[in-house]
Every structure is written in structure tokens, then in C-alpha cells.
């Protein structure tokens, strides 16, 4: 970065025995318990599967992952760090340092995937593509510009939209491969990243809403308008980016449904109502079930056929759940 980074004005020793916001502790514990490293995932088991992809499919996959690498790099080195001076509790600062570090782990994970599956030449080509693709660069620049702005709550909006929306044009692909029993270990790794991003988006969105509590009605309206404007700007670019990537394999329309679905969740993380109607968020069930085996509506009494649900199916539970 060329400009001087704003630092926290005054630092005091952090006291974890005096908590202002319990959510800081909850999220810290959650993130620590979720900690992982790419070395834990047996990516090399995907080498054979990788060889079954066509050259176009391989190239698409490499490009998707360099795009995700760029976003994770932005989030690690600019995004999460830029939020630290805005923190209202010392524990929030600590959580943000954890988030920044995990974003670096995510960025590095894609390199683990690359080095397992592809040649140096292919890797270099994909990184070159990432620096030359206009829509990918625009996406990173839009968000980075907002991070450099002077409004703490707007920064949180940009961050939440990145965590909860902008990654998903990329996350779609490993879920797609997984639903076809391809690159399943890579998908396992990406699911760990998705889970982390969900906690990050939830937490930063929550802090945004806490910040709104003391805002005037005018200020609230300003931030709401800003959120939707930024979402539209990012969305338009995201649609272009999706076409750049997925037109060659005919998946762009399917990916867009996934974008709408996740844009709704990003808005909800910020406390706003979902915007896209269900007619355009009907994500391919195979993708949803690759994301979460529990997402199948037929398990539900209200929305399922009625015959498919079973009362009291066996669930492994920890005694700790019921023991205090």
C-alpha cells in the first residue's frame, strides 16, 4: 500500500476477563475451534480425477482458484486489517487479527491445490490471467477502494459483501465438481474456507448492525442506500465475470442463481431483507447438497412430501450438549 496505514489510536492491554460484547468471545472460540491448515487435506488424492477433466475444464478451474486467491489476499492484507482501527472493543481487534490470518491461510491453500494438480507453466498462466481479467481486477479494486474510505460502517458493508457474496462465483465450481464426484478432496478444502467465510460475514455484519444502533434515521437510510448501491455495482460486475469464466462450459446461468442466493444471505448478514425473489435463487439442488447435506428440503415436515421425514432419526450427539 502506498498510503500510510491508520493504526489504532491507543493500545491497552487486552483483558479477556472483562468482556463488553459476548459475541467477541463466541466468535473467537468458534474461529479457534474451526482452525485448519491445507496440509490436513489429502489433495493428492485428486490427481487422478484432475486428469479426467478436459483442458478447458482444467483451465476454468485454475482461473477460478486464482480469482479466489486474489480476493483472499485482498481480505487478508487490506480488508480485515483495515477494520481493526474501527473496532469498538479490544476483543473485536483480536478477532479481526484471527480473521486476517485465516484469509492468508485460505489464499495459501489455493497454491497447495495448484502445486498438487498443475504444472508451473499452467500455474503461471492462470496467475497471469488473473492480473489481466478486467472484471476480476475491477472487483478487487472496487472493494479495496471502499476499504480505503473514511467511513467505518461502510467498510464493514464492503467486507461483508466480499465475505458473503463475492467469493461465490468461484465457490460454485468446486461444489459442481464435487456433485459429479470429481476433485472431492479439493471440495473438502473449499468447504472449510466457505465455513470460515460464513463466520466472518456473520461477525462483521453483526458489528455493522451494532454500529447502526446509535445512528440517526438519516444515517441509517444513507447506509442502507449505500449497501444496495454497492451490491448492485458489484453484482453487475459479478455477472460479467461469471460469463467470462463459465460461458465456455455452459454453466453461467446456473452460477448466477447461486450468486443471487448468496447475495440474499449477504444482505441478511447486514440485517437487511433478502432482495432476490425465490424465482431466481433456485440453486441447483446438486450444488446445495454439495454445500450442505442437510439443505435438502425433503427433510422438512412443512416443505417435504410428508412421507419422507422420520421422527427422531439417529444423531450422534455429545453428552456435553446436555450436561451442565
Amino acid at each position, binding site marked *: 500500500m502506498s498510503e500510510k496505514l491508520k493504526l489504532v489510536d491507543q493500545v491497552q492491554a487486552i483483558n479477556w476477563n472483562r468482556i463488553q*460484547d*459476548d*459475541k467477541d468471545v*463466541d466468535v473467537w472460540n*468458534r474461529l479457534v*475451534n*474451526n482452525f485448519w491448515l491445507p496440509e490436513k487435506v489429502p489433495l493428492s488424492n485428486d490427481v487422478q480425477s484432475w486428469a479426467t477433466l478436459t483442458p478447458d475444464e482444467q483451465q476454468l478451474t485454475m482461473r477460478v482458484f486464482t480469482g479466489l486467491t486474489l480476493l483472499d489476499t485482498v481480505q487478508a492484507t487490506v480488508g480485515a486489517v483495515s477494520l481493526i482501527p474501527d473496532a469498538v472493543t479490544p476483543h473485536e481487534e483480536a478477532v479481526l487479527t484471527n480473521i486476517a490470518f485465516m484469509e492468508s491461510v485460505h489464499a495459501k491453500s489455493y497454491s497447495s491445490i495448484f502445486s498438487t494438480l498443475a504444472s508451473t507453466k499452467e500455474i503461471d498462466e492462470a496467475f497471469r490471467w488473473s492480473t489481466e481479467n478486467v472484471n476480476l481486477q475491477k472487483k478487487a479494486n472496487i472493494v479495496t477502494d471502499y476499504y480505503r474510505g473514511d467511513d467505518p460502517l461502510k467498510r464493514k458493508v464492503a467486507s461483508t459483501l466480499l465475505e458473503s457474496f463475492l467469493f461465490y462465483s468461484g465457490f460454485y465450481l468446486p461444489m459442481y465438481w464435487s456433485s459429479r464426484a470429481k476433485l472431492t478432496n479439493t471440495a473438502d478444502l473449499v*468447504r472449510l474456507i*466457505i*465455513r470460515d*467465510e*460464513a*463466520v466472518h460475514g*456473520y461477525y462483521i455484519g*453483526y458489528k455493522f*448492525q451494532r454500529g447502526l444502533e446509535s445512528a440517526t434515521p438519516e444515517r441509517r437510510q444513507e447506509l442502507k442506500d449505500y449497501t444496495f448501491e454497492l451490491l448492485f455495482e458489484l453484482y453487475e460486475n459479478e455477472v460479467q465475470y461469471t460469463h467470462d469464466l463459465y460461458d465456455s462450459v455452459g454453466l453461467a446461468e446456473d452460477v448466477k442463481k447461486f450468486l443471487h442466493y448468496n447475495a*440474499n*444471505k449477504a444482505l*441478511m*448478514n447486514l*440485517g437487511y*431483507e*433478502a432482495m432476490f425473489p*425465490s424465482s431466481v435463487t433456485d440453486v441447483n439442488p446438486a450444488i*446445495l447438497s454439495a*454445500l*450442505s*447435506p*442437510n*439443505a435438502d428440503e425433503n*427433510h*422438512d*415436515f*412443512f*416443505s417435504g412430501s410428508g412421507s419422507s*421425514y422420520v*421422527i*427422531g*432419526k*439417529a*444423531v*450422534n*450427539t*455429545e*453428552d*456435553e*450438549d*446436555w*450436561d*451442565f
Partner: protein
Amino acid sequence: MSALAVDDQPSTSPVGDVEGPATDAPLIYFSSVSDNTHRFVMKLGVPAARMPLLTKEPTLQATRPYVLVLPTYGGITGKGAVPRQVVKFLNNERNRTLLKGVIGAGNTNFGETYCLAADIIAAKCHVPVLYRFEVMGTSEDVDRVTKGLEEFWI
């Protein structure tokens, strides 16, 4: 299951709990300070009682059959998936007996633990999971649950 078995005898109810406020609401829910589940329940427009945020506070006492709404977020194994406040509430035998169904809130991005707390309670208490929704629910979720609950109580 051991904790439940012990608590089947009311006299051994945990930590000398004080009787909390009674509620005749058909919907009882837990929501953390994020208020996501709270917002969803408010949109349903049916009488609902919120469990206290702090475990140390006296929990609610249900007085009629009800549906429970609760969130799950973010664990790997689901360990501790059910919020302690809800565990305390369900360790009251009457509350457990009057429970007729569970609605789960969560996020599919949490993979296998999506709405896990609802599954755990459904299995332990032998009631159905009625519905799952994400974050604070869309308008379609609100419509489906409103309609579903109307039919459920007939």
C-alpha cells in the same frame, strides 16, 4: 442421554433452578444478541416467547404445546451445537413434554452442521424438524412457516 434421564425426575432439576416465567405462547425461541432468529419470529406474527439470553437467568416454563425455534452456527463436529440456554430449558421435563416440533435456523455454508441443533433436539425429544431457514429467513420462508404452523395446529 444421561442428563435427560436424570432430569426426568423433577426433583433433580439442575443447579437448583428457580422457576422462570410461565408462557402460553405457541412459539418459543432462542436468539443470540445477533437477533437473526428474533427477526424471523417477529415476521411470523404469532405470539412468541423468547428465552433469556443468559443461562444463569431463570428459564421459561411452557404451559401449552409449542414449537421451538433455534439457531445453529459454525461448529465442525456439532459439539455444543445446542445453545446452553436451550439445554437448560429442555432439561425441564414439562417443557420437553409440551414440545411438538422444531424449526431450525442456520446457514448452509456451515455444511453438515446446518441446523444441527434442531436435528439433535428432534432426535432427543422424538419430534419432527418442521422447517429450516437461513440467517433471518426470506419472505418465502415466512409464508411457508406461517401456513405450515396453521395447518400443524389443526
